[in-house]
Protein backbone atom coordinates (compact mmCIF):
# COMPACT_ATOMS: atom_id res chain seq x y z
CA UNK A 1 0.00 0.00 0.00
CA UNK A 2 1.38 3.45 -0.84
CA UNK A 3 2.22 5.45 2.28
CA UNK A 4 -0.12 8.26 1.21
CA UNK A 5 -3.00 5.81 0.94
CA UNK A 6 -2.60 4.70 4.55
CA UNK A 7 -5.48 5.94 6.66
CA UNK A 8 -4.82 7.99 9.74
CA UNK A 9 -4.39 5.91 12.88
CA UNK A 10 -4.13 6.94 16.50
CA UNK A 11 -0.34 6.98 16.23
CA UNK A 12 1.50 10.29 16.14
CA UNK A 13 3.22 11.17 12.88
CA UNK A 14 6.78 10.64 14.10
CA UNK A 15 5.95 7.12 15.22
CA UNK A 16 4.18 6.43 11.95
CA UNK A 17 7.13 7.60 9.90
CA UNK A 18 9.56 5.57 12.03
CA UNK A 19 7.45 2.51 11.30
CA UNK A 20 7.21 3.40 7.62
CA UNK A 21 11.00 3.63 7.47
CA UNK A 22 11.30 0.05 8.76
CA UNK A 23 8.58 -1.33 6.52
CA UNK A 24 10.87 -1.89 3.55
CA UNK A 25 13.22 -4.08 5.57
CA UNK A 26 10.67 -6.70 6.59
CA UNK A 27 8.56 -9.01 4.46
CA UNK A 28 5.44 -8.80 6.69
CA UNK A 29 3.53 -6.09 8.53
CA UNK A 30 3.40 -8.25 11.62
CA UNK A 31 7.19 -8.20 11.97
CA UNK A 32 6.92 -4.48 12.67
CA UNK A 33 4.98 -5.13 15.85
CA UNK A 34 7.82 -5.17 18.39
CA UNK A 35 9.52 -2.12 16.89
CA UNK A 36 6.16 -0.34 16.72
CA UNK A 37 5.41 -1.11 20.36
CA UNK A 38 8.83 0.18 21.40
CA UNK A 39 8.20 3.43 19.54
CA UNK A 40 4.68 3.76 20.92
CA UNK A 41 5.76 3.04 24.49
CA UNK A 42 8.40 5.72 24.28
CA UNK A 43 5.83 8.20 22.99
CA UNK A 44 3.30 7.36 25.73
CA UNK A 45 5.82 7.90 28.54
CA UNK A 46 7.04 4.39 29.19
CA UNK A 47 3.83 2.38 29.10
CA UNK A 48 1.10 1.35 26.71
CA UNK A 49 -2.39 2.59 27.54
CA UNK A 50 -5.28 0.97 25.68
CA UNK A 51 -5.28 3.86 23.23
CA UNK A 52 -1.68 3.07 22.24
CA UNK A 53 -2.32 -0.63 21.81
CA UNK A 54 -5.36 -0.02 19.64
CA UNK A 55 -3.49 2.51 17.53
CA UNK A 56 -0.64 0.08 16.90
CA UNK A 57 -3.15 -2.65 16.00
CA UNK A 58 -4.82 -0.32 13.56
CA UNK A 59 -1.55 0.83 12.04
CA UNK A 60 -0.38 -2.72 11.36
CA UNK A 61 -3.88 -4.01 10.61
CA UNK A 62 -3.68 -6.65 13.28
CA UNK A 63 -6.49 -7.75 15.61
CA UNK A 64 -6.18 -5.92 18.93
CA UNK A 65 -6.16 -9.28 20.72
CA UNK A 66 -2.94 -10.22 18.93
CA UNK A 67 -1.29 -7.01 20.05
CA UNK A 68 -2.49 -7.48 23.64
CA UNK A 69 -1.09 -11.02 23.53
CA UNK A 70 2.32 -9.71 22.58
CA UNK A 71 2.28 -6.82 25.06
CA UNK A 72 1.53 -9.15 27.96
CA UNK A 73 4.24 -11.62 26.95
CA UNK A 74 7.25 -9.32 27.20
CA UNK A 75 8.72 -7.91 30.41
CA UNK A 76 9.66 -4.59 28.84
CA UNK A 77 6.13 -3.67 27.74
CA UNK A 78 3.89 -2.20 30.42
CA UNK A 79 0.13 -1.95 30.55
CA UNK A 80 0.07 0.14 33.70
CA UNK A 81 1.48 3.58 34.37
CA UNK A 82 5.12 3.63 35.37
CA UNK A 83 7.27 6.28 36.97
CA UNK A 84 9.11 8.88 34.93
CA UNK A 85 12.12 6.71 35.61
CA UNK A 86 12.13 2.94 35.58
CA UNK A 87 14.55 1.22 37.92
CA UNK A 88 15.25 -2.47 37.36
CA UNK A 89 17.39 -4.15 39.98
CA UNK A 90 18.92 -7.52 39.12
CA UNK A 91 18.61 -10.16 41.82
CA UNK A 92 19.57 -13.19 39.74
CA UNK A 93 22.33 -15.42 41.02
CA UNK A 94 25.50 -13.50 40.15
CA UNK A 95 24.05 -10.29 41.58
CA UNK A 96 22.47 -12.08 44.56
CA UNK A 97 25.90 -13.45 45.52
CA UNK A 98 27.19 -9.86 45.62
CA UNK A 99 24.29 -8.29 47.50
CA UNK A 100 21.69 -7.61 44.78
CA UNK A 101 18.79 -8.05 47.20
CA UNK A 102 20.30 -5.46 49.52
CA UNK A 103 20.41 -3.03 46.59
CA UNK A 104 16.76 -3.68 45.83
CA UNK A 105 15.88 -3.12 49.48
CA UNK A 106 17.88 0.09 49.62
CA UNK A 107 16.32 1.54 46.48
CA UNK A 108 12.77 0.59 47.42
CA UNK A 109 13.33 1.83 50.94
CA UNK A 110 14.65 5.16 49.76
CA UNK A 111 11.72 5.71 47.40
CA UNK A 112 9.15 4.25 49.77
CA UNK A 113 7.76 1.89 47.15
CA UNK A 114 7.21 -1.81 46.80
CA UNK A 115 7.42 -3.97 43.69
CA UNK A 116 5.72 -2.31 40.71
CA UNK A 117 4.57 0.74 42.68
CA UNK A 118 5.19 4.26 41.47
CA UNK A 119 6.65 6.65 44.03
CA UNK A 120 4.23 9.32 45.26
CA UNK A 121 5.79 12.09 43.19
CA UNK A 122 5.45 9.93 40.07
CA UNK A 123 9.21 9.90 39.76
CA UNK A 124 10.19 6.25 39.94
CA UNK A 125 8.92 2.73 39.66
CA UNK A 126 11.16 -0.07 40.83
CA UNK A 127 11.09 -3.72 39.86
CA UNK A 128 13.14 -6.75 40.74
CA UNK A 129 14.54 -7.95 37.43
CA UNK A 130 16.18 -11.01 35.92
CA UNK A 131 19.80 -11.14 34.75
CA UNK A 132 20.65 -8.09 32.66
CA UNK A 133 23.87 -9.50 31.23
CA UNK A 134 26.31 -7.42 33.23
CA UNK A 135 27.36 -9.84 35.98
CA UNK A 136 30.93 -8.56 36.01
CA UNK A 137 29.49 -5.36 37.55
CA UNK A 138 27.37 -7.17 40.14
CA UNK A 139 25.44 -5.96 41.96
CA UNK A 140 23.89 -3.83 39.24
CA UNK A 141 20.70 -2.15 38.17
CA UNK A 142 19.28 -0.52 35.08
CA UNK A 143 17.80 2.97 35.30
CA UNK A 144 15.85 3.81 32.14
CA UNK A 145 18.32 2.82 29.41
CA UNK A 146 21.52 2.97 31.48
CA UNK A 147 23.35 0.29 33.41
CA UNK A 148 24.80 1.10 36.82
CA UNK A 149 27.19 -1.45 38.26
CA UNK A 150 29.43 -2.14 41.25
CA UNK A 151 26.72 -0.71 43.46
CA UNK A 152 26.64 -0.29 47.18
CA UNK A 153 23.32 0.48 48.87
CA UNK A 154 24.56 4.02 49.37
CA UNK A 155 25.50 4.54 45.71
CA UNK A 156 22.23 3.02 44.55
CA UNK A 157 20.23 5.36 46.79
CA UNK A 158 22.23 8.34 45.56
CA UNK A 159 21.57 7.40 41.92
CA UNK A 160 17.81 7.35 42.43
CA UNK A 161 17.88 10.50 44.55
CA UNK A 162 19.62 12.38 41.78
CA UNK A 163 16.98 11.55 39.18
CA UNK A 164 14.71 14.45 38.38
Amino acid sequence: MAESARRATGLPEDVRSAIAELRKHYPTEEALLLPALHFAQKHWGGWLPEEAILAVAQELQLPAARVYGVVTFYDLFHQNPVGRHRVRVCTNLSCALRGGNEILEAVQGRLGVRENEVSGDGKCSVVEFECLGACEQAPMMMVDDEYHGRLTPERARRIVEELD
Partner: protein
Amino acid sequence: MSYEPVLLRRSAGAAPGAPPVGIGAYRDDGGYEGLAKALTMAPAEIIEEVKASGLRGRGGAGFPAGVKWSFIPKESDKPKYLVCNADESEPGTFKDRLLIETDPHQLLEGCAICCYAVGAPVCYIYIRGEYVRQAEILESAIREAYQAGVLGESVLGKGFKLDMRVHRGAGAYICGEETGMLESLEGRRGQPRVKPPFPAIIGAFGAPTVINNVETLCNVPHIIQRGADWFAGIGTDERNTGPKLYCISGHVEKPGVYEFPIGASLDTLLEAAGGMLAGRALKAFIPGGASAALLPADKSHLPMDFDNLAKAGSMLGSAAVVVMDETTCLVRSVYRLAKFFAHESCGQCTPCREGTNWSQLVLGRIEKGHGRPGDAELLVRMTANMSGTALCALADACVGPVRSLAQNFRPEIEEHINSGRCPLPYRRVFEETA
Protein backbone atom coordinates in the same frame (compact mmCIF):
# COMPACT_ATOMS: atom_id res chain seq x y z
CA MET B 1 53.05 -20.27 26.88
CA SER B 2 51.21 -17.02 26.79
CA TYR B 3 48.07 -16.90 24.72
CA GLU B 4 47.42 -14.13 22.24
CA PRO B 5 43.72 -13.17 22.33
CA VAL B 6 41.82 -13.51 19.06
CA LEU B 7 38.28 -12.33 19.72
CA LEU B 8 39.36 -9.67 22.18
CA ARG B 9 42.55 -8.67 20.37
CA ARG B 10 41.29 -5.18 19.66
CA SER B 11 39.57 -4.67 22.98
CA ALA B 12 41.71 -6.46 25.56
CA GLY B 13 43.64 -3.34 26.54
CA ALA B 14 40.79 -0.85 26.16
CA ALA B 15 39.69 1.13 29.18
CA PRO B 16 36.23 0.30 30.51
CA GLY B 17 33.69 2.55 28.82
CA ALA B 18 36.03 3.34 25.90
CA PRO B 19 34.21 3.89 22.61
CA PRO B 20 33.92 0.86 20.31
CA VAL B 21 36.53 0.22 17.62
CA GLY B 22 35.37 2.24 14.60
CA ILE B 23 35.53 1.08 11.01
CA GLY B 24 38.78 2.95 10.33
CA ALA B 25 40.67 1.41 13.22
CA TYR B 26 39.09 -1.93 12.46
CA ARG B 27 40.32 -1.88 8.87
CA ASP B 28 43.77 -0.65 9.88
CA ASP B 29 44.04 -3.74 12.02
CA GLY B 30 43.20 -6.11 9.16
CA GLY B 31 39.46 -6.00 9.69
CA TYR B 32 37.20 -6.87 6.75
CA GLU B 33 40.11 -8.68 5.07
CA GLY B 34 38.43 -11.97 5.96
CA LEU B 35 35.31 -10.77 4.16
CA ALA B 36 37.36 -9.60 1.17
CA LYS B 37 39.00 -13.01 1.00
CA ALA B 38 35.68 -14.81 1.44
CA LEU B 39 34.22 -12.95 -1.53
CA THR B 40 36.95 -14.44 -3.73
CA MET B 41 36.02 -17.95 -2.60
CA ALA B 42 33.10 -20.10 -3.68
CA PRO B 43 30.37 -20.24 -0.99
CA ALA B 44 30.82 -24.01 -0.68
CA GLU B 45 34.54 -23.52 -0.03
CA ILE B 46 33.77 -21.19 2.87
CA ILE B 47 31.38 -23.69 4.39
CA GLU B 48 34.04 -26.40 4.05
CA GLU B 49 36.60 -24.17 5.73
CA VAL B 50 34.30 -23.45 8.66
CA LYS B 51 33.49 -27.16 8.95
CA ALA B 52 37.20 -28.03 8.92
CA SER B 53 37.89 -25.49 11.66
CA GLY B 54 35.69 -27.48 14.02
CA LEU B 55 33.94 -24.28 15.18
CA ARG B 56 31.01 -25.24 17.40
CA GLY B 57 28.18 -22.91 18.37
CA ARG B 58 28.95 -20.64 21.32
CA GLY B 59 25.29 -20.00 22.19
CA GLY B 60 24.76 -23.08 24.27
CA ALA B 61 24.25 -26.25 22.29
CA GLY B 62 27.67 -26.51 20.62
CA PHE B 63 26.39 -27.53 17.20
CA PRO B 64 29.10 -27.39 14.47
CA ALA B 65 28.57 -24.10 12.62
CA GLY B 66 29.77 -25.26 9.20
CA VAL B 67 27.48 -28.26 9.32
CA LYS B 68 24.53 -26.04 10.17
CA TRP B 69 25.33 -23.77 7.22
CA SER B 70 25.52 -26.77 4.91
CA PHE B 71 21.88 -27.64 5.72
CA ILE B 72 20.68 -24.47 3.99
CA PRO B 73 19.30 -25.45 0.59
CA LYS B 74 21.24 -23.95 -2.32
CA GLU B 75 18.07 -23.08 -4.18
CA SER B 76 15.14 -21.44 -2.49
CA ASP B 77 12.20 -19.56 -3.92
CA LYS B 78 12.22 -17.29 -0.87
CA PRO B 79 15.10 -15.07 0.26
CA LYS B 80 17.18 -16.84 2.90
CA TYR B 81 18.07 -15.24 6.21
CA LEU B 82 20.76 -15.10 8.82
CA VAL B 83 19.47 -14.27 12.29
CA CYS B 84 22.26 -13.49 14.70
CA ASN B 85 21.36 -14.42 18.24
CA ALA B 86 22.29 -11.49 20.47
CA ASP B 87 19.58 -12.23 23.01
CA GLU B 88 22.14 -13.15 25.68
CA SER B 89 19.75 -13.83 28.54
CA GLU B 90 21.29 -16.88 30.12
CA PRO B 91 22.02 -15.78 33.70
CA GLY B 92 25.74 -15.31 34.22
CA THR B 93 26.45 -14.54 30.56
CA PHE B 94 27.81 -11.20 29.35
CA LYS B 95 30.37 -12.00 26.65
CA ASP B 96 28.23 -11.06 23.63
CA ARG B 97 27.60 -7.68 25.22
CA LEU B 98 31.35 -7.11 25.47
CA LEU B 99 31.93 -8.23 21.85
CA ILE B 100 29.27 -5.78 20.66
CA GLU B 101 30.34 -2.90 22.90
CA THR B 102 34.00 -3.08 22.06
CA ASP B 103 34.36 -4.38 18.51
CA PRO B 104 31.04 -4.35 16.63
CA HIS B 105 32.57 -4.62 13.16
CA GLN B 106 34.05 -8.02 14.03
CA LEU B 107 30.48 -9.26 14.42
CA LEU B 108 29.25 -7.52 11.26
CA GLU B 109 32.11 -9.10 9.31
CA GLY B 110 31.25 -12.57 10.61
CA CYS B 111 27.60 -12.04 9.72
CA ALA B 112 28.49 -10.83 6.22
CA ILE B 113 30.71 -13.86 5.55
CA CYS B 114 27.98 -16.22 6.75
CA CYS B 115 25.37 -14.49 4.56
CA TYR B 116 27.59 -14.79 1.50
CA ALA B 117 28.33 -18.45 2.24
CA VAL B 118 24.68 -19.47 2.51
CA GLY B 119 23.34 -16.95 -0.01
CA ALA B 120 21.30 -14.84 2.41
CA PRO B 121 20.64 -11.25 1.28
CA VAL B 122 19.25 -10.22 4.67
CA CYS B 123 20.65 -10.45 8.19
CA TYR B 124 18.76 -9.55 11.34
CA ILE B 125 20.68 -9.16 14.56
CA TYR B 126 18.13 -9.97 17.25
CA ILE B 127 19.33 -8.22 20.41
CA ARG B 128 17.72 -8.38 23.83
CA GLY B 129 15.60 -5.32 24.56
CA GLU B 130 17.62 -4.35 27.63
CA TYR B 131 20.75 -3.85 25.52
CA VAL B 132 19.65 -0.38 24.40
CA ARG B 133 23.12 1.15 24.18
CA GLN B 134 24.48 -1.96 22.53
CA ALA B 135 21.75 -1.84 19.87
CA GLU B 136 22.74 1.78 19.20
CA ILE B 137 26.39 0.77 18.88
CA LEU B 138 25.48 -1.89 16.34
CA GLU B 139 23.25 0.48 14.43
CA SER B 140 25.96 3.05 14.18
CA ALA B 141 28.51 0.42 13.10
CA ILE B 142 26.06 -0.77 10.43
CA ARG B 143 25.69 2.81 9.21
CA GLU B 144 29.48 3.10 8.98
CA ALA B 145 29.63 -0.16 7.06
CA TYR B 146 26.97 0.99 4.58
CA GLN B 147 28.80 4.27 4.04
CA ALA B 148 32.06 2.42 3.43
CA GLY B 149 30.44 0.08 0.91
CA VAL B 150 30.96 -2.92 3.18
CA LEU B 151 27.21 -3.52 3.33
CA GLY B 152 24.41 -2.64 0.96
CA GLU B 153 23.92 -2.99 -2.77
CA SER B 154 27.35 -4.43 -3.49
CA VAL B 155 29.42 -5.73 -0.60
CA LEU B 156 33.01 -4.48 -1.05
CA GLY B 157 32.13 -3.81 -4.67
CA LYS B 158 31.85 -7.51 -5.46
CA GLY B 159 28.18 -7.54 -6.41
CA PHE B 160 26.81 -9.38 -3.38
CA LYS B 161 23.82 -7.50 -1.95
CA LEU B 162 23.30 -7.53 1.79
CA ASP B 163 20.87 -5.72 4.07
CA MET B 164 21.58 -5.83 7.81
CA ARG B 165 19.14 -4.77 10.53
CA VAL B 166 19.18 -4.67 14.30
CA HIS B 167 15.93 -6.04 15.76
CA ARG B 168 15.25 -5.38 19.43
CA GLY B 169 13.58 -7.93 21.68
CA ALA B 170 11.48 -6.83 24.62
CA GLY B 171 12.54 -8.83 27.65
CA ALA B 172 12.02 -12.60 27.46
CA TYR B 173 14.63 -15.29 28.03
CA ILE B 174 12.74 -17.70 25.80
CA CYS B 175 13.45 -15.47 22.81
CA GLY B 176 17.05 -16.71 23.00
CA GLU B 177 15.77 -20.14 22.02
CA GLU B 178 16.10 -20.08 18.27
CA THR B 179 12.51 -20.73 17.25
CA GLY B 180 11.14 -18.54 20.04
CA MET B 181 13.40 -15.88 18.55
CA LEU B 182 11.94 -16.40 15.08
CA GLU B 183 8.41 -16.09 16.42
CA SER B 184 9.41 -12.89 18.19
CA LEU B 185 11.12 -11.52 15.07
CA GLU B 186 7.93 -12.16 13.15
CA GLY B 187 5.99 -10.10 15.69
CA ARG B 188 4.48 -12.71 17.94
CA ARG B 189 4.82 -14.06 21.48
CA GLY B 190 8.16 -15.87 21.70
CA GLN B 191 6.77 -19.37 21.92
CA PRO B 192 9.10 -21.99 20.45
CA ARG B 193 8.01 -23.97 17.42
CA VAL B 194 7.67 -27.68 16.81
CA LYS B 195 10.86 -29.10 15.29
CA PRO B 196 11.29 -30.49 12.67
CA PRO B 197 11.11 -28.64 10.38
CA PHE B 198 14.34 -27.00 11.51
CA PRO B 199 15.02 -23.33 10.76
CA ALA B 200 17.54 -24.30 8.06
CA ILE B 201 14.55 -25.45 6.01
CA ILE B 202 11.67 -23.36 7.38
CA GLY B 203 12.93 -20.51 9.52
CA ALA B 204 12.23 -16.80 9.50
CA PHE B 205 9.16 -15.90 7.42
CA GLY B 206 8.95 -19.48 6.21
CA ALA B 207 12.35 -19.32 4.53
CA PRO B 208 15.65 -21.17 5.10
CA THR B 209 17.43 -19.49 8.01
CA VAL B 210 20.75 -19.79 9.80
CA ILE B 211 20.76 -18.86 13.47
CA ASN B 212 24.09 -18.36 15.16
CA ASN B 213 25.28 -16.79 18.36
CA VAL B 214 27.28 -13.53 18.39
CA GLU B 215 30.50 -15.18 19.56
CA THR B 216 30.17 -17.99 17.01
CA LEU B 217 29.97 -15.45 14.18
CA CYS B 218 32.82 -13.35 15.59
CA ASN B 219 35.13 -16.34 15.10
CA VAL B 220 34.35 -16.60 11.40
CA PRO B 221 36.48 -13.74 9.97
CA HIS B 222 39.52 -15.14 11.80
CA ILE B 223 38.91 -18.62 10.42
CA ILE B 224 38.71 -17.30 6.87
CA GLN B 225 41.72 -15.05 7.29
CA ARG B 226 44.02 -17.41 9.14
CA GLY B 227 42.70 -20.76 8.00
CA ALA B 228 40.89 -23.74 9.47
CA ASP B 229 44.13 -25.45 10.49
CA TRP B 230 45.24 -22.53 12.60
CA PHE B 231 41.84 -22.49 14.35
CA ALA B 232 41.71 -26.25 14.82
CA GLY B 233 45.15 -26.09 16.42
CA ILE B 234 43.74 -24.10 19.34
CA GLY B 235 41.92 -25.94 22.11
CA THR B 236 41.74 -29.35 23.72
CA ASP B 237 41.24 -31.67 20.76
CA GLU B 238 39.65 -31.83 17.30
CA ARG B 239 36.11 -31.69 18.75
CA ASN B 240 36.84 -28.68 20.94
CA THR B 241 38.63 -26.04 18.94
CA GLY B 242 39.29 -22.33 18.85
CA PRO B 243 39.35 -19.41 21.23
CA LYS B 244 36.65 -19.17 23.89
CA LEU B 245 35.28 -16.36 26.00
CA TYR B 246 34.57 -17.31 29.60
CA CYS B 247 32.38 -15.04 31.73
CA ILE B 248 33.34 -15.40 35.35
CA SER B 249 31.17 -13.89 38.08
CA GLY B 250 30.11 -14.41 41.67
CA HIS B 251 32.65 -14.79 44.45
CA VAL B 252 35.83 -13.84 42.60
CA GLU B 253 38.04 -10.81 42.97
CA LYS B 254 37.91 -9.64 39.35
CA PRO B 255 34.77 -10.84 37.62
CA GLY B 256 34.86 -10.36 33.85
CA VAL B 257 35.23 -11.90 30.43
CA TYR B 258 38.49 -13.80 29.89
CA GLU B 259 39.62 -15.31 26.62
CA PHE B 260 41.45 -18.63 26.56
CA PRO B 261 41.85 -21.53 24.18
CA ILE B 262 38.69 -23.56 24.69
CA GLY B 263 39.25 -25.98 27.55
CA ALA B 264 40.47 -23.63 30.28
CA SER B 265 39.88 -24.95 33.78
CA LEU B 266 38.27 -23.02 36.62
CA ASP B 267 41.70 -22.98 38.29
CA THR B 268 43.10 -21.16 35.26
CA LEU B 269 40.20 -18.71 35.23
CA LEU B 270 40.48 -18.04 38.94
CA GLU B 271 44.14 -17.23 38.53
CA ALA B 272 43.29 -14.72 35.80
CA ALA B 273 40.42 -13.30 37.86
CA GLY B 274 42.51 -12.61 40.94
CA GLY B 275 41.36 -15.63 42.92
CA MET B 276 38.40 -16.18 45.22
CA LEU B 277 36.76 -13.13 46.74
CA ALA B 278 38.38 -12.24 50.08
CA GLY B 279 40.39 -15.46 49.86
CA ARG B 280 37.46 -17.65 50.92
CA ALA B 281 37.32 -21.29 49.84
CA LEU B 282 35.50 -22.49 46.73
CA LYS B 283 32.39 -24.54 47.38
CA ALA B 284 30.78 -25.11 43.99
CA PHE B 285 30.55 -23.57 40.55
CA ILE B 286 28.32 -23.46 37.52
CA PRO B 287 30.44 -23.83 34.39
CA GLY B 288 27.98 -22.88 31.64
CA GLY B 289 25.22 -20.54 32.77
CA ALA B 290 22.08 -21.07 34.80
CA SER B 291 21.13 -24.15 32.75
CA ALA B 292 24.25 -26.10 33.60
CA ALA B 293 24.59 -28.61 36.41
CA LEU B 294 26.51 -27.37 39.47
CA LEU B 295 29.94 -28.89 39.97
CA PRO B 296 31.72 -29.32 43.30
CA ALA B 297 35.03 -27.61 44.11
CA ASP B 298 37.06 -30.72 43.30
CA LYS B 299 36.22 -30.31 39.61
CA SER B 300 38.07 -27.01 39.37
CA HIS B 301 40.93 -28.61 37.41
CA LEU B 302 38.57 -29.93 34.69
CA PRO B 303 39.12 -28.55 31.16
CA MET B 304 35.95 -26.59 30.45
CA ASP B 305 35.12 -27.60 26.91
CA PHE B 306 32.03 -29.21 25.38
CA ASP B 307 33.01 -32.83 25.87
CA ASN B 308 34.85 -32.75 29.18
CA LEU B 309 31.98 -30.91 30.85
CA ALA B 310 29.38 -33.22 29.30
CA LYS B 311 31.35 -36.19 30.63
CA ALA B 312 31.30 -34.61 34.08
CA GLY B 313 27.50 -34.37 33.89
CA SER B 314 27.35 -30.64 33.19
CA MET B 315 27.84 -28.52 30.09
CA LEU B 316 29.83 -25.68 28.60
CA GLY B 317 26.60 -23.91 27.60
CA SER B 318 27.32 -20.22 27.26
CA ALA B 319 30.54 -20.53 29.30
CA ALA B 320 29.09 -18.40 32.07
CA VAL B 321 31.04 -19.50 35.11
CA VAL B 322 29.38 -18.60 38.40
CA VAL B 323 31.59 -19.13 41.41
CA MET B 324 30.18 -19.78 44.88
CA ASP B 325 32.27 -19.77 48.03
CA GLU B 326 31.97 -21.71 51.28
CA THR B 327 29.48 -19.26 52.78
CA THR B 328 26.94 -19.87 50.01
CA CYS B 329 23.75 -21.83 50.57
CA LEU B 330 23.34 -23.90 47.41
CA VAL B 331 19.63 -24.47 48.05
CA ARG B 332 19.06 -20.73 48.04
CA SER B 333 21.18 -20.33 44.90
CA VAL B 334 19.34 -23.02 42.96
CA TYR B 335 16.00 -21.76 44.27
CA ARG B 336 16.84 -18.40 42.70
CA LEU B 337 17.58 -20.08 39.38
CA ALA B 338 14.37 -22.14 39.53
CA LYS B 339 12.45 -18.93 40.19
CA PHE B 340 14.02 -17.50 37.05
CA PHE B 341 13.03 -20.49 34.92
CA ALA B 342 9.47 -20.44 36.31
CA HIS B 343 9.23 -16.76 35.39
CA GLU B 344 10.62 -17.33 31.91
CA SER B 345 8.71 -20.48 30.91
CA CYS B 346 6.50 -19.46 27.99
CA GLY B 347 3.79 -21.72 29.35
CA GLN B 348 2.88 -23.70 26.28
CA CYS B 349 4.23 -27.11 27.42
CA THR B 350 2.85 -28.59 30.63
CA PRO B 351 6.02 -30.30 31.88
CA CYS B 352 7.89 -27.00 31.65
CA ARG B 353 5.16 -24.67 32.95
CA GLU B 354 4.36 -26.94 35.90
CA GLY B 355 7.83 -28.39 36.44
CA THR B 356 9.64 -25.08 36.67
CA ASN B 357 7.01 -23.73 39.05
CA TRP B 358 7.09 -26.81 41.29
CA SER B 359 10.89 -26.71 41.32
CA GLN B 360 10.63 -23.19 42.64
CA LEU B 361 7.99 -24.07 45.22
CA VAL B 362 9.74 -27.15 46.58
CA LEU B 363 13.14 -25.49 46.74
CA GLY B 364 11.57 -22.43 48.33
CA ARG B 365 9.99 -24.45 51.11
CA ILE B 366 13.22 -26.35 51.77
CA GLU B 367 15.15 -23.08 52.02
CA LYS B 368 12.57 -21.61 54.41
CA GLY B 369 12.87 -24.62 56.69
CA HIS B 370 9.59 -26.23 55.72
CA GLY B 371 11.07 -29.02 53.61
CA ARG B 372 9.54 -32.47 53.93
CA PRO B 373 11.36 -35.78 54.15
CA GLY B 374 11.62 -37.11 50.61
CA ASP B 375 11.80 -33.68 48.99
CA ALA B 376 15.19 -34.44 47.44
CA GLU B 377 13.76 -37.56 45.80
CA LEU B 378 10.71 -35.57 44.76
CA LEU B 379 12.94 -33.08 42.96
CA VAL B 380 14.78 -35.86 41.16
CA ARG B 381 11.48 -37.49 40.10
CA MET B 382 10.12 -34.17 38.89
CA THR B 383 13.17 -33.45 36.80
CA ALA B 384 12.81 -36.85 35.15
CA ASN B 385 9.39 -35.74 33.89
CA MET B 386 10.72 -32.40 32.65
CA SER B 387 13.63 -33.75 30.66
CA GLY B 388 13.09 -34.02 26.91
CA THR B 389 9.33 -33.70 27.27
CA ALA B 390 8.78 -30.18 26.00
CA LEU B 391 9.07 -28.40 22.65
CA CYS B 392 12.27 -26.64 23.61
CA ALA B 393 15.08 -27.03 26.09
CA LEU B 394 13.93 -24.50 28.70
CA ALA B 395 12.61 -27.24 30.97
CA ASP B 396 15.88 -29.14 30.57
CA ALA B 397 17.67 -25.94 31.45
CA CYS B 398 15.87 -25.88 34.80
CA VAL B 399 16.66 -29.56 35.29
CA GLY B 400 20.41 -28.85 35.04
CA PRO B 401 20.89 -27.02 38.34
CA VAL B 402 17.93 -28.60 40.18
CA ARG B 403 18.86 -32.21 39.57
CA SER B 404 22.56 -31.65 40.24
CA LEU B 405 21.65 -30.08 43.59
CA ALA B 406 19.33 -32.93 44.52
CA GLN B 407 21.77 -35.61 43.45
CA ASN B 408 25.24 -34.27 44.13
CA PHE B 409 24.63 -31.96 47.06
CA ARG B 410 21.92 -33.95 48.81
CA PRO B 411 23.39 -33.65 52.33
CA GLU B 412 22.83 -29.90 52.12
CA ILE B 413 19.14 -30.45 51.31
CA GLU B 414 18.81 -33.03 54.10
CA GLU B 415 20.39 -30.66 56.58
CA HIS B 416 17.79 -28.02 55.74
CA ILE B 417 14.96 -30.52 56.15
CA ASN B 418 16.25 -32.19 59.32
CA SER B 419 17.06 -29.02 61.20
CA GLY B 420 14.04 -27.11 59.88
CA ARG B 421 16.16 -24.14 58.89
CA CYS B 422 18.80 -22.98 56.47
CA PRO B 423 22.25 -23.89 57.87
CA LEU B 424 23.82 -20.99 55.94
CA PRO B 425 21.42 -18.07 56.35
CA TYR B 426 21.98 -15.04 54.15
CA ARG B 427 24.91 -12.97 55.32
CA ARG B 428 24.67 -9.35 54.37
CA VAL B 429 27.30 -8.24 51.89
CA PHE B 430 27.05 -4.61 52.95
CA GLU B 431 27.42 -3.56 56.56
CA GLU B 432 25.05 -0.62 56.70
CA THR B 433 21.32 -1.19 56.65
CA ALA B 434 19.35 2.04 57.00
